């Protein structure tokens, strides 16, 4: 049963990822990424990390993707040029991706980590649920937790400054 769910979710994740890369229209890329994120949440559930899965759905597929949809709707979906600026760019990109995949897989599978070919140890019932993660975040990882909240605040302010209204005298700046 677990294997069936894993393969369905894995096919969904890989299909969504390919959809992101292959779709011509950015709007369809965003929709494919949402499908990808939901499949990943299922995989997280299989790995007994309920809180990360919930955060994935609520934060990523919920909030971040809405931001993307707004910006795509605002900017409009411009079509990309079909020609390669560098001759053979697609070919080289494909080759590089293939070798990268082979290299990462070989590095992981030939590593000495023997527990990789097991299910992992048996874990207690509360493994990865919100209470356990919350305890870790507020006790052991309190400083990184606060630092990431400050980082989010800085990013929000930065986005407002970047995308805010044009100031006087800044109207041009177009390069062509």
């Amino acid at each position, binding site marked *: 049963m677990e294997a069936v769910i894993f393969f369905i979710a894995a096919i969904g*994740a890989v299909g969504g990822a390919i959809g992101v*890369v292959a779709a011509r229209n950015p709007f369809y890329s965003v929709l494919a990424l949402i499908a990808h994120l939901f499949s990943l949440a299922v995989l997280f559930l299989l*790995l007994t990390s309920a809180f990360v899965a919930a955060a994935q759905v609520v934060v990523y597929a919920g909030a971040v993707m809405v931001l993307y949809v707004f910006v795509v709707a605002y900017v409009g979906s411009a079509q990309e*040029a079909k020609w390669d600026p560098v001759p053979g760019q697609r070919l080289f990109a494909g080759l590089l*991706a293939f070798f990268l995949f082979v290299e990462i897989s070989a590095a*992981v599978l030939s590593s000495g980590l023997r527990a*990789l070919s097991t299910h*992992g140890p048996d874990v207690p019932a509360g493994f990865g649920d919100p209470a356990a993660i919350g305890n870790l975040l507020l006790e052991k990882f309190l400083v990184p937790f606060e630092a990431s909240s400050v980082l989010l605040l800085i990013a929000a302010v930065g986005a407002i400054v970047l995308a805010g209204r044009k100031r006087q005298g800044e109207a041009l700046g177009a390069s062509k």
Partner: protein
Amino acid sequence: MNINWYIVLSALLFTIGATGILVRRSPMVILLCLELMLNAGNLALVAFSREVGNQQGQVFALVVMVIAACEVVVGLGLIVAIFRRKLPLDVDDLRRLHG
């Protein structure tokens, strides 16, 4: 399912994201492909945390999510700023800093 499968799946997703960054030219799609790569990293982190039976890897994954959200916010702000200045939304045309 063995943890191996999750790790290989994460490697596959990472390479798909890397390919997207190499072949696409719209900055928005490049940001989406960055998300793919970050999520592949997240999957590996959670899989390794399951492998050792320790929840600290999941905290790492949550921090990666925060970083991804920050990156999205700043990147989309840049895209909106580029669009408002009527510059082309194409990373091959935006090459004034190209040496």
